């Protein structure tokens, strides 16, 4: 990564961290309802991979911990927050919520709330790319626990069989909801599980963005060059619970502290400071500036935006009738 790129991505990661922390606060204030799954601790995963890919050009799909992936693809943080507020101006017009952020214009194909559900969807997106002949790739970000679903294996088999341009990124954060990987999964290192499908795989530290970037570059090149799927495992950790209803009673505070020593933002920050490219004062200013942006623009936009109209309750269930007349009535339009 070049120095300017590192500085830019640090700014982005700080935004991602502060955005998520502000969501936590808004949830406590009951501005946000439903389930809320936050990303702090894992920022280097999404950012490292997407720095090696082409955000807005490549198709990205993920699970319910999806705010940061959407923003990284190009979604406006204001619209993502407005979605959490359930507003008409939200990414999904208030119909989706935290777990269902979409931004088709930036090729962010959504957050899905069935664990493992995006696997075959990602392969399908790759199939469409293959049919249309584009140079895009599909990138599927999911956690380690999703690999215990049947569709994981079904999808790997098909992706390898048909050489689909899809990169599977496994963000191994060591927990599936509140059950540790040791207690749920016979194999800790997930990349070993794909060997049975003849899919090349790699594993690396998911906390150091430069390491993630280097590994992701090879993975992305492999897929974009028409060699079929690739599986990249990133070892990482989520600081907060699975969702807001989780008080993390299943793990020790010592373990959490150990991981926070390897915070992805601090690793990059300290490296830039050591290189003389950043000062601690400048970093603290960046945090303040980011918080001000979130408060004055993101939160304000969300607060001020209108709710969806109750008259529109059934809008978006089916395609607009006018566009479907010939098939609904049997008569040409």
């Amino acid at each position, binding site marked *: 990564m070049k120095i300017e790129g590192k500085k830019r991505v640090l700014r982005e990661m700080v935004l991602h961290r502060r955005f998520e922390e502000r969501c936590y606060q808004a949830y406590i204030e009951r501005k946000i309802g439903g389930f809320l799954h936050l990303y702090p601790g894992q920022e280097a995963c999404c950012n490292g991979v997407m720095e090696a890919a082409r955000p807005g050009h490549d*198709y990205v*799909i993920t699970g319910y911990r999806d705010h940061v992936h959407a923003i990284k693809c190009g979604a406006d943080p204001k619209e993502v927050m407005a979605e959490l507020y359930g507003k008409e101006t*939200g*990414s*999904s*017009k*208030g*119909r*989706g919520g935290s777990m*269902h952020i*979409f*931004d*088709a*214009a930036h090729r962010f*194909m*959504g957050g*899905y709330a*069935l664990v493992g*559900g995006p*696997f*075959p*969807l*990602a*392969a*399908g*997106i*790759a*199939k*469409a*790319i*293959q*049919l*249309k002949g584009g140079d895009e790739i599909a990138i599927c970000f999911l956690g380690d626990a999703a690999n215990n679903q*049947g*569709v994981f294996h*079904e*999808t790997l*088999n*098909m992706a390898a*069989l*048909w050489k689909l341009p899809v990169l599977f990124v496994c963000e191994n954060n060591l927990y599936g909801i509140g059950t540790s990987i040791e207690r749920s999964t016979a194999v800790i290192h997930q990349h070993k599980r794909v060997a049975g499908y003849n899919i090349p795989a790699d594993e690396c530290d998911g906390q150091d963005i430069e390491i993630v970037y280097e590994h992701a570059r090879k993975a992305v090149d492999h897929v974009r060059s028409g060699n079929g799927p690739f599986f990249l495992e990133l070892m990482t950790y989520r600081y907060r619970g699975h969702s807001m209803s989780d008080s993390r009673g299943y793990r020790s505070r010592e373990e959490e502290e150990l991981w926070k020593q390897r915070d992805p933002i601090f690793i990059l920050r300290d490296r830039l400071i050591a290189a003389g490219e950043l000062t601690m004062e400048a970093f603290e200013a960046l945090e303040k500036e980011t918080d001000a942006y979130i408060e004055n623009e993101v939160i304000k936009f969300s607060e001020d935006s209108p709710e969806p109209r109750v008259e529109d309750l059934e*809008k*978006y*269930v*089916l*395609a607009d009738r006018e*566009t*479907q007349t*010939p*098939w*609904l*009535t*049997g*008569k*040409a339009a």
Partner: protein
Amino acid sequence: MANIMYWEAIQRAHDEEMTRDPLVICMGEDIGVAGGTYKATKGLYEKYGPLRVMDTPISEGGFTGLAIGASFLGVRPIVEIMSVNFAWLAMDQMFNSAAKIRYMSGGQLEAPCVFRSAGGAAHQLGAQHSARMEKVFMGIAGLRVVTPSNPKQAYGLLKSAIRSNDPVFINEHELMYNMKGEVPDTEYFHPLEGSDVTRSGTDVTLFGYNISVHWCLKAAEILDKQYGISAEVVDLYSLAPLDRAGIKASVSKTHRAVIAEEDEAPVGVGSEVIAIINEECFFELDAAPVRVHSALVPQPYNHTLEKAAIPDHEDVVKAVLKLFGKA
């Protein structure tokens, strides 16, 4: 008009749409090289090649999800699920992904997929290959469900389903693939909504869909010839949405209703039709509507037990006679 078989009608719809649009593809188990269990995709592999006619592994959840993902980018996949019993494995993707994607994305994405499957009980296929599952599909918001009762519908409904921007589940029947019928020589789109009055009558309406339309038609013939009862037969080819206006119009004319379904009764097509009658035209009724349906049992293997579990035209005749106090 060509007199062709149900499977040929389905094959023709595939062929025409795949010729027209390179993004129409089909996939399923044994549909390519083997030509399809019911021949519905015969010759397509040779004509369009393996990229567009995909023999899938036996992974219903996986390949159904793959089709849905492809449809997000404008591909129009026709997915064949060899037996509707296997659709249980694909329902997560059909219901959670395809049916909800437009809504939960605020209209940004859509899943113009077609899922075709052989439903119904055939001959002694036992509990896990004889399911009727239309009741499961018809209650899902965002999913259209149609079920052809003849080759013309099989052709025209598939044509419309492929063009539709909504996901459509097409419930076919294992016993009907070799049924012959007239299909227009020119391109024809059957409406995805509504119902057909297949036989006009004045004394009672017999509601059927798919195979049970044929029980109703046979029963109507017997009722007319032997009992002087004029039965109207309404073909509910669209199960989601059901044709409220059509149900109301017919019952308002005949004042009596019998609903014949091969599915078991609870939470089924009959329950829904009766609910619609209650809501739309309760005071038009001269008698309480009656359901003719399968026994609530896992389908037995034994031939005699199987026959006892599934209704036929005689059960429809009996239900009508009972309605008229003649049995």
